[in-house]
């Protein structure tokens, strides 16, 4: 097919390009070009004030031979383990509760969605007070004396709790949309066939919302792997547990902006991008086994 476009068609195409130009230019200037620069920077030493010296793989060699870096990688993976499964199960549970006939449904939906509306800095501050080892309400309720934020074993758990708390509402709303798209007739037919609630959940609900679950899973994993702000706000440079709660992105921030070593920082970013890419690829391959797009 080699049909020539008419003048009108060509004009229309030009207008199309003109209309999407702001987005494309924005994407290129703000995302793609900086990403290319980051790749280049990761092979450089930052001399200062935007001047770089090419040093090849040195940043990567330094990075892979630093225990701190491997610790941060492990911390990030550990954080994902702590937040993603629990967060998903909780979100699904909440979504299903909100999908039933309860009183004040609108009120509950608002409450679960509220954490997302709150300013993260305020959220972190309130949780700091709750977790406080000496006067925190959590210890008083449990009757314990755990230094949640400064103990190397509990610090990451504390951050994970806040993370799950603030994301459950949003995930639940996404899943709720999925739940409401399931035709009622499926459940009716199923119960006529004599299936109980639990069987209904596994044979109808789960397969039907698996596409929603899949997108929530991908988003949640990506944001967990990029966790930075919560750690920055809940912790402090002088925290004795810092080494055990430092994520890859936090290490990047410290290298690039505190120590001014932007080359090394960029190498950490590239490593993180590779990790996320790998995990996402695995998920897209894995989705064939459990995600149902049509029944």
């Amino acid at each position, binding site marked *: 097919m080699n049909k020539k476009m008419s003048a009108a068609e060509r004009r229309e195409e030009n207008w199309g390009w003109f209309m999407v130009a702001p987005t494309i230019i924005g994407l290129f200037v703000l995302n793609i070009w900086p990403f290319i620069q980051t790749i280049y920077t990761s092979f450089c030493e930052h001399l*200062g004030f935007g001047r770089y010296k090419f040093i090849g793989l040195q940043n990567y060699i330094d990075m892979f031979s630093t225990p701190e870096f491997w610790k941060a990688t492990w911390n990030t993976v550990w954080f994902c383990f702590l937040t993603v499964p629990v967060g998903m199960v909780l979100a699904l549970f909440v979504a299903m509760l909100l999908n039933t006939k309860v009183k004040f449904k609108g009120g509950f939906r608002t409450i679960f969605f509220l954490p997302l509306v709150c300013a993260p800095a305020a959220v972190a501050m309130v949780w700091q007070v709750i977790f406080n080892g000496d006067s925190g309400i959590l210890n008083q309720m449990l009757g314990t004396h755990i230094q949640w934020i400064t103990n190397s074993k509990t610090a990451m758990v504390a951050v994970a709790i806040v993370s799950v708390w603030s994301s459950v509402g949003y995930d639940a709303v996404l899943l709720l949309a999925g739940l409401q798209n399931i035709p009622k007739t499926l459940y009716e037919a199923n119960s006529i066939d004599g299936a109980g609630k639990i069987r209904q959940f596994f044979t109808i609900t789960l397969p039907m919302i698996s596409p929603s679950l899949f997108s929530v899973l991908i988003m949640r994993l990506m944001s967990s792997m990029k966790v930075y702000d919560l750690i920055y706000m809940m*912790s402090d440079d002088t925290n004795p547990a810092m080494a055990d709660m430092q994520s890859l992105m936090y290490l990047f921030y410290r290298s690039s902006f505190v120590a001014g070593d932007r080359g090394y920082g960029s190498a950490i970013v590239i490593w993180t991008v590779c990790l996320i890419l790998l995990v996402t690829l695995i998920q897209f391959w894995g989705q064939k086994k459990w995600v149902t797009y049509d029944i």
Partner: protein
Amino acid sequence: MKKIPRMTVAVLLLALLLSMVGCGASDGKTHLSFQIWDTNQRDGMKAMCDAYTAQHPDVVIDVQVVSWSEYWTKLEAAAESNTMPDIFWMHTNQLLYYADFGMLADVTDLYDDVESGYYQNHFSDISLGNVSGSDGHYYGVPKDKDIGVLVYNKEMFDAAGVAYPDDDWTWDDLTDASQKIYDATGNYGYLAYLDDQLGYWSYVYQNGGYILTADRTACGFNEPGGKEAMEFYIGMQKENWCPDQNFFTQNGAGATFWSERGAMFMEGSWSLLGALRDHPEMTGKWDIAKLPKSPNPVSTPESLDKDGRACMSNGLCYATGAHGKNLETVKDVLKYFGTEEAQLIQGQSGAAIPAYLGTEESWRVAFEQYGNPINVDCIFEQFDYAIQVPYNSASPRWKSQVLDVLTQIYAGNQEVASGLDKMTETVNTETAKKLAGN
């Protein structure tokens, strides 16, 4: 597809152009921007600028406050794109980095027409050290100086029947008083929190140790004096009268003191007026004293023979970019900022202790509105044996690494001695790298 009328396009373009033109000021005056990071000092800085513009009506100075947390990211980005503010505050920690890269205007000969040796005659060695680049030239006009003091709660001392800290107080007196106060009142004694300028630095120098040698090329964390001081300072958290680092990270030393749960802590002179303003209910209950001295300072060739006394002092300066558009006008403003008149305005406004020798005490005026409740004398007396905060051009690189090792020591994952070796090695390696690169 409908055609957009040519007229509409023309009008839109015209509006865009006009809005761009509108950005430039057109009152014939020179507009200068002046960037600082401390809101508390805005009025003092404004007063100083007003005094200058009263004499130079053709200049307008706009004081802008940028918070400390974004100040350096912004300034560095501005330096890269050559859009730095006309005048800005510079910190000792960053000055070498900016100066060595040629980002700051050399102001060494600023006062040549006024007086030869103006800087040496009117500013202390520490102030001049704070504005010197690696080449020995001056890259800023000294602004102020600060120092750490021991803040203590008089009521707790009275309750425990312990005499208030005096000029001869040693570390032993500090720990004794802490123990007695803890036993008598149940409140914490001295709050020995992890901090450099308001923490272990002073102890190291008091004990005859050093963080950096005088030429700032080598580190001395693991020298006998420093080692003993670090062991003492870190060890205090093991006493029952001192909270541990877990506590300080979550609660803060200042908040503990001001909520009357601790008897003593080290605070910077720059925070005292704010404390009087923010804790009016505490006025009269607290006072300040000189830092306690080391009982047995170690004597080495590098150590400063000061009878166990030492106190870290830092100071800011006013600087300008090397390639600014209004460089001549800006230099004239900077020149004014370094005069006795301008420094007096700064002192009297309570903004900070002026760097200009002889004007320091003007800062006392600011305490009158509170009825002079604290012993400000000890601040000025401490300047006699003050030591410049230890920074070198590699500081940004080693500071966070040193802090990492320290948190590991406080967490109990690292012995003090081996940790100090590690810190020394880090500082030396980073410094050597930097020196080799220049």
